[in-house]
C-alpha cells in the first residue's frame, strides 16, 4: 500500500485525500489548524447561487469521518527530503512521516487589507473586508454602524490587493468581482433602503451564471456600478467615510459620503505555501503561487517528481474550480503511482 501525504486540509486537501483513499491508498493529511475546511470557514454563502457554505463543509466533514484517511491537526511541515525514492516529511513535534508521494494543497491567504493604508482598514471604524462582511451576512449578523443605525450608503471596492503594483500583486484574484456582486445583492436583501455602489476597474464575470448575476444586481437589486478605483478613504466627524475616486467614464473625480466601506480583498499565496515550496524545492511563480510543470497538461505537477499540487496554492481559484483541480490531482497521483 502506497502512502501519500497531503499538506493542507482545506477543500483541495480533503477532496484529494478522499479520492485517493477511494483509489485504495493510505493517505495522511497535515493541517495546521484545529479544524479542516481552510478558508471555507471564513465564508457563509457561495456565489453565484448563494449556496450555504455549511452544505459544502458538511460534505467535507462527512468525507473526513467516513473515509479511512488520517488527519494530523495543528501540525506543520518543517521539511521534506527525498530518500531512496521516498519522501521523508518532518513535522512539528519532531515526528517523521515517510511517503511515496506528496500533494501540496496549502491554499491561499487573504490579502491583508491594512497594506492598502489609504483605505484605513483597522483604522476607520466602518471599513471592513469582504471576509468580515461574510460573517455579518449570517442571519444573526449585526450590520449596524455608528449610532446603531443601518448603513444608508455602502460602497464596495473591487481589486483590493489584486491587479495592483502598490500591493505587490499584479495578478487578478478572479473571484472578488463575483463575490462583490453576490455580497451586494445579499446586503440589498438585508437593507432594502440602502444605496449600494461598487467601484470597479473591470468586472470579470468569467464563470457560469456570473454575468447573469451581475445583470440581476443592476436590474433587480439596484446596485450601482461606478468605474473607477478608490484612491483613498477618510473618516468624518460622524464616523461616516468620505471616499474619492475618479468616475472614469465621465472623466471626472468623484467623492461621496458613505456609511460602510467593504474592501473586496484578493488572494495571495500564503506563508504556508512559500514555506512548503522552500522545504521541498519546488518553484513559485512571480505571483508567489506554486509553479506547475505545464500550464495546460500538467497543472497538478510540480517541478519535482512525486510532489503534486492541488487547489488555490497554484493560482486564485473558486471553490468549484478547487474541487475539480483536487480531483484531477488525485487522478494524476494515482496514475503516477501505478506507473512506478
Amino acid at each position, binding site marked *: 500500500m502506497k502512502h501519500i501525504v497531503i499538506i493542507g486540509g482545506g477543500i483541495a486537501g480533503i477532496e484529494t485525500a478522499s479520492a485517493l483513499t477511494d483509489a485504495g491508498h493510505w493517505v495522511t493529511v497535515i493541517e495546521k489548524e484545529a479544524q479542516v475546511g481552510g478558508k471555507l470557514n471564513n465564508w457563509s454563502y457561495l456565489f453565484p447561487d448563494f449556496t450555504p457554505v455549511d452544505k459544502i463543509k458538511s460534505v467535507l466533514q462527512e468525507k473526513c469521518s467516513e473515509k479511512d484517511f488520517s488527519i494530523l491537526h495543528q501540525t506543520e511541515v518543517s521539511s521534506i527530503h527525498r530518500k531512496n525514492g521516498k519522501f521523508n516529511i518532518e513535522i512539528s513535534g519532531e515526528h517523521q512521516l515517510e511517503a511515496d508521494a506528496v500533494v501540496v494543497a496549502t491554499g491561499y491567504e487573504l490579502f491583508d487589507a491594512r497594506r492598502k493604508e489609504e483605505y484605513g482598514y483597522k483604522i476607520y471604524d466602518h471599513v471592513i473586508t469582504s471576509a468580515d462582511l461574510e460573517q455579518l451576512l449570517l442571519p444573526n449578523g449585526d450590520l449596524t454602524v455608528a449610532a446603531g443605525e443601518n448603513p444608508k450608503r455602502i460602497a464596495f471596492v473591487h481589486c483590493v490587493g489584486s491587479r495592483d503594483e502598490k500591493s505587490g500583486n499584479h495578478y487578478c484574484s478572479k473571484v472578488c468581482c463575483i463575490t462583490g456582486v453576490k455580497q451586494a445583492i445579499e446586503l440589498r436583501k438585508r437593507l432594502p433602503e440602502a444605496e449600494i455602489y461598487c467601484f470597479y476597474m473591470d468586472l470579470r464575470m468569467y464563470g457560469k451564471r456570473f454575468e447573469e448575476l451581475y*445583470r440581476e444586481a*443592476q*436590474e433587480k437589486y*439596484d446596485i*450601482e456600478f461606478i*468605474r473607477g478605483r478608490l484612491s483613498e478613504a477618510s473618516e468624518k466627524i460622524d464616523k461616516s467615510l468620505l471616499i*474619492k475616486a475618479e*468616475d472614469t*467614464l*465621465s472623466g*471626472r*473625480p*468623484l*467623492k*461621496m*459620503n458613505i456609511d460602510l466601506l467593504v474592501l473586496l480583498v484578493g488572494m495571495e499565496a500564503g506563508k504556508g505555501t512559500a514555506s512548503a515550496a522552500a522545504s521541498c524545492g519546488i518553484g513559485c511563480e512571480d505571483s508567489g503561487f506554486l509553479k506547475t510543470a505545464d500550464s495546460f497538461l500538467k497543472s497538478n505537477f510540480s517541478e519535482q517528481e512525486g510532489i503534486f499540487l492541488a487547489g488555490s496554492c497554484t493560482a486564485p481559484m473558486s471553490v468549484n474550480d478547487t474541487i475539480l483541480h483536487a480531483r484531477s490531482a488525485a487522478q494524476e497521483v494515482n496514475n503516477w503511482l501505478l506507473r512506478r
Partner: protein
Amino acid sequence: MKDFGFTMIKQRTIDYDQFDGRLLNEVLEMEPSFKVCLSCGGCTATCSAVDLVSFNVRRMNLLLRRGETVELESEIKKCMLCGKCMLVCPRGINIRNVIMLIKKSIPKYKTVTL
C-alpha cells in the same frame, strides 16, 4: 471684495452627496431597462447624430446618474431618435424611451449644478 487678480476655481469633482436623483429615479421607474447599461458605448458608435455633431449617447447615462441636468438637457436634444442605438445595445435597453422621458421631464428638475 478685494481684487487679488485671481478668483476661486470651481471644483471639477462630482460631489455625489449633492446629487439630485429625482430625474434619475423617475426615468428608472418609467424605463427600468435603463438600469442595466454597461457603458459599452455601442450606442455612441452607431449613432446617426454623432456623424454630424459632437454627441455621446453613452454619456447621457452618466450625466443622468450624476444629476448634471443642465448639460444633459442641451445634449439630449441632439438625438434624432432614429433607433439605431437600440439595434446594437447588448442589454436591450429601450434607449428611445429614455431619451423621450428625459426630454419631457428635465424642465421639471432643471437645477443649476455647482
